[in-house]
Each structure stands twice: as structure tokens, then as C-alpha cells.
């Protein structure tokens, strides 16, 4: 019932987003373009590096590109729904959180919906395309269950993003000073798309258990790569997703509690 209500709100907010964007059409395309350029840059890095070496820690170029294609899918979905980069400034410093709290809907849902960013979704489709091309180049077999597994993996990865960044945004409830943790996490997330084996133990541990960004790229993608398939880690993706998502929700709720002066 509540979820249905929130979903119905999504349609309304989306409609308002589209109306807003129609007034700034040129910006819309610049945004789409810059998102795609960003992905192109990362691919360029991979291509340039592979002009100098045949493999990256035993991973071939097509395999690394395959992982990158997967990486783009959950990231695009996450960016569409959780565009919280300026949460602290807009909602805490400028006080818009007060308005959110005088409205009869879940506070996190409202904040997320007010910032929907559908152009990011284009990145997901491009990622799917890249994955498809790499799939063919690697000559991987295609099973009937692969699309289903992909959906489960992507959902798990999206939950990891949502949980981590929601928790991060909730930090602003505790301190309105810029923390710089946003860029920190953003930086680290980018290492999840390279073969985890190339890093040393410390970074591997960090990417697997502390800020589990290996689960938004290399682990779930490895499920489809026969040569590097690590089924255990791959199947942990939805599990870790649920755990991190729950943590994000808990941190958000306690942050709101603190904002309203009920905590501590």
C-alpha cells in the first residue's frame, strides 16, 4: 500500500522532471553527452593501457571491457534515482528538509524523487551494449537463465550504491560542514570495475567488505566470464546488496531522528 503510493508519486515527479527539462532542452543534451563522454574516457583508458600490455593481471582486454559494461548498468540506474550529491547544501543548509518533513510521504522517497535524473539511464543502455559486444568477442555461451541472473545481479549492485550513498547523504544530518567523503567514496567506487586480483590484500579487503564496490563491477560480472567465474562472490552480490541497503536505510532514519532533535 505504502510502496504503491510511493511508486505512484514517482510517476508524478517524473512528469514534473520532464516538463522542467523541456524548458531547458539544450542542457538536457549537454548532460547526456557529458555522461557518455565520461564513460568514453574510462574506455579510452582501458584501450590505451592495452596497447602496451596484452593482459591486466591475467585478464584480457575484452574481459576488462566486459566488466566495465556491466559496471555502467547499475550505476546508470542508481544515478537516475539517487542524485543526492548536493543534498547537504540544498536540504540542510538551505533548510528544505523542513518542507520535506511537513509533507505526508516518506522523507527519503521524497528527496530521491525530487532529484530524479533519467538521462543517467542512457548510460545503463550503453553499458548493456558494451557488455553485449564484449560477450560476442569473447565467444561466451549464452544460457536461458543469463538475463535473469543479470537482473538479480544488477538489483544487488544498485542496492549497494543506494545504501552507501544514502548513508553518506545522511551524514549531513550530523554535520553540515562539507565532509569531502562524497568524492572519497566516488573515487573508490571506480576501482570496483577492474579485476580485483591486481590489488593488494588491503585494497581487496576494502573493496569487498568495507566499501563493497567490487560487488558493483567485477564480482557480479565474473559470473558470466567462464574463465574467471567466481560463483560464490558473484552470488554474494544480492546478499551484500540487501545488507548494505538496509544499513543505508537505518542510517538515514537515525539521521532524520537526529535532525529532528530526538536522537543523542
Amino acid at each position: 500500500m505504502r510502496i504503491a503510493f510511493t511508486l505512484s508519486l514517482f510517476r508524478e515527479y517524473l512528469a514534473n522532471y520532464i516538463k522542467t527539462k523541456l524548458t531547458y532542452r539544450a542542457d538536457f543534451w549537454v548532460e547526456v553527452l557529458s555522461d557518455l563522454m565520461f564513460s568514453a574516457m574510462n574506455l579510452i583508458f582501458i584501450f590505451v593501457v592495452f596497447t602496451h600490455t596484452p593482459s591486466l593481471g591475467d585478464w584480457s582486454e575484452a574481459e576488462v571491457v566486459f566488466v566495465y559494461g556491466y559496471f555502467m548498468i547499475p550505476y546508470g540506474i542508481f544515478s537516475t534515482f539517487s542524485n543526492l550529491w548536493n543534498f547537504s547544501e540544498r536540504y540542510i543548509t538551505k533548510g528544505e528538509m523542513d518542507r520535506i518533513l511537513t509533507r505526508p510521504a516518506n522523507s527519503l522517497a521524497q528527496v530521491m524523487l525530487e532529484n530524479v535524473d533519467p538521462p543517467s539511464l542512457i548510460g545503463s543502455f550503453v553499458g548493456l551494449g558494451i557488455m553485449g559486444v564484449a560477450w560476442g568477442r569473447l565467444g561466451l555461451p549464452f544460457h536461458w537463465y543469463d538475463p535473469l541472473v543479470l537482473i538479480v545481479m544488477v538489483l544487488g549492485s544498485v542496492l549497494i550504491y543506494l545504501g552507501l550513498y544514502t548513508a553518506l547523504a545522511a551524514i549531513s544530518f550530523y554535520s553540515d560542514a562539507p565532509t569531502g567523503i562524497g568524492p572519497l567514496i566516488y573515487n573508490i567506487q571506480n576501482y570496483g570495475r577492474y579485476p580485483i586480483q591486481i590489488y593488494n590484500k588491503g585494497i581487496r579487503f576494502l573493496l569487498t567488505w568495507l566499501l563493497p564496490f567490487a560487488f558493483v563491477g567485477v564480482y557480479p560480472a565474473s559470473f558470466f566470464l567462464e574463465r574467471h567465474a567466481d560463483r560464490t562472490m558473484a552470488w554474494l552480490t544480492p546478499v551484500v546488496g540487501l545488507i548494505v541497503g538496509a544499513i543505508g536505510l537505518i542510517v538515514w532514519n537515525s539521521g532524520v531522528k537526529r535532525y529532528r532533535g530526538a536522537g543523542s
Partner: protein
Amino acid sequence: MLAIDVNQLRKQFKVQKNREGLKGAMLDLFKREHTEVTAVKDISFQIPQGEICGYIGENGAGKSTTIKMLTGILVPTSGRILVNGYVPYKEREEFVRGIGVVFGQRSQLWWDIGVIESFRLLRKVYRVDEADFKRRLDELVETLQLQDLLNRPVRKLSLGQRMRCELVAALLHQPSILFLDEPTIGLDIVVKTEIREFLKRLNRDHGTTILLTTHDLQDIEALCSRVIMLDDGRIIYDGGLEELKERWGKGREVQFQFTDPISLDAVSSLTSGLDVRWTKENEVTAKVWIPRELNVSDVLSRVVGSAAEISDIKIFETNTDEIVREIYRTGSPEAKEAVRG
């Protein structure tokens, strides 16, 4: 039934201290110091349904904090609140469907799209059914004359137009209580009057309870039958506007213009023995404040009967503005105690 029932309400905040200078900033890097500030100090008041109540006080007196607690944004440190039969900070989502809130300096409308789109979205958020929404919107649009504005984006509206739209946005779901935080701030006199008329009508036709904070005492005079005055987190006056005038407007001022230059000592000596207060305006002009217990004529006769030659006399009755200023200036606890009765 009471619309708002507040009992021994208190709110404390922890405030970070920033130490001064480079050394202070370096120290702050490692250890922060906090101080506790009590914004609202055990206040109690009751507002029956259908009343328009003004909530006034200087900046930092605790007005906004109280409003935020009443609207469910903040959770009180201690005390009891009951608004519309709900405890605002519990069951927040259920509770806020019965109230309307306008923060004068913050918009609740989408900046880039037509006003009507924001209204439609709010209809969804508050789950108002289509027929009710249409009826309500038509009524509001007509009384506030917004027909031509509905399709304009908010950023193209003047402040007055925007404020009228904000009111609509807050009233679409037929709240029985309306909270207004500085609703007329920055508006010109014509728009202010329009908004006051609208609020009066709303209160009369729908019995909407209204609690508003304001710095503009004209708002209070025009709208409120009752005033709650806050100073440093405490209620220093709670009662009718007329009563406030009567109790505090207990003095009058008389201005004398003399033909020759005078000194404050000289004029004060004329009324020695009487409990009056002289102030000098310029070389030849002085004002005397006379409390209600004294007869103005007693003072007049003394001054007029003296050797000083007078060219003009004016008598002033104090207005609300001055009363309020006077209350804040004297600020002594006895004076406040006396007001509370």
C-alpha cells in the same frame, strides 16, 4: 476542542563553538567544543479551534523553533504537544495531512514549471481526490485571483504572486490548522492587505485555525484576536490584543516645544515628586512619559505654570508597535511578571 495544546514545552540544542583565529581553528581540527542552548523554555499555551493567534518575538526568541515542533519537524526535548489531536512528532505522515505550512522565505513550488503542475503534484502527495481538488482549487484561485498565473513558472512570478500561490499550495488539502512563518515578509502594502483579507475570510468561512509568526505588528492588529509574545524562550505575554494595549499602553507621552533652549535637569525639576520620565528631543523640545495612574493635566499644569515659555504641546497615545518595543526594552522580570498577571 483545542486545536493546539502545549504543555511545559522545552527544546535544547547543542551548538558547536568555533574558536577564533588560526590557533583556534587548528585546535578545532582535533577537538570541538559544544555549548547547550535552550531555545524554548517550558512554555505552555492552548489555542482553541477557529482562533487566529499571533506569535511574536524578536529574532532568536524561539518562535521558529516552536513552529517547527508544532508542525512535527522537530522533536521536543521535554513537554507535551497535541495538535489536531495528534502528537506531531509521532505519526508524522498521518499528522501533516491535517495541517498547512507556509514558510515565508522558502518556496514549496517547483521553480521551473507552471504553478498548476506543483499543485497537481501536491494533490497526489496529500492524496486529495480529483473532485475535491478541483472544487478547492477553483475556490482558492478565484478568491486570490490567480487565473492568469496558473501556467506561469514560479521563477517568473513576483514575490506577491508567489506568496499567494504558496498559500494555495498549503491549503489544497483543506487543513484545519494553518501555520504561517512570516507570511508577509518583503511584500508591498497592497499585497499585504490582500493576504490579510484572504486569511480573515479563510478563518471565517472554513473555521481554519491560524497561527502566524510575524515581525509586522500590522499583521497582528489586522488579524489576531490573541497574541503570544515570546522573549528568550519564555512566554512573556499571552492574551487579547486589546488587553495588551490596555495594560501596556498605560502611559501617554506629551511633547513640549519651548521658546528658549532648555536642559533636561531643568524640565525634570518642574515635575519633581511625580513618577514621570523626561527625554530631550533637541535644544528646545522635550518629551515626558506619563504613566496611566497619573493625570496628564497634573503634569501639564506644573509645566505650563512654570516660568518656561511654551510654543507648542502635543499629546501621543502609544500604539502597539511602541508597546511591544517598550516591553522588550524594559525586559525586567518584575515588569514581565506584572504583564502575565
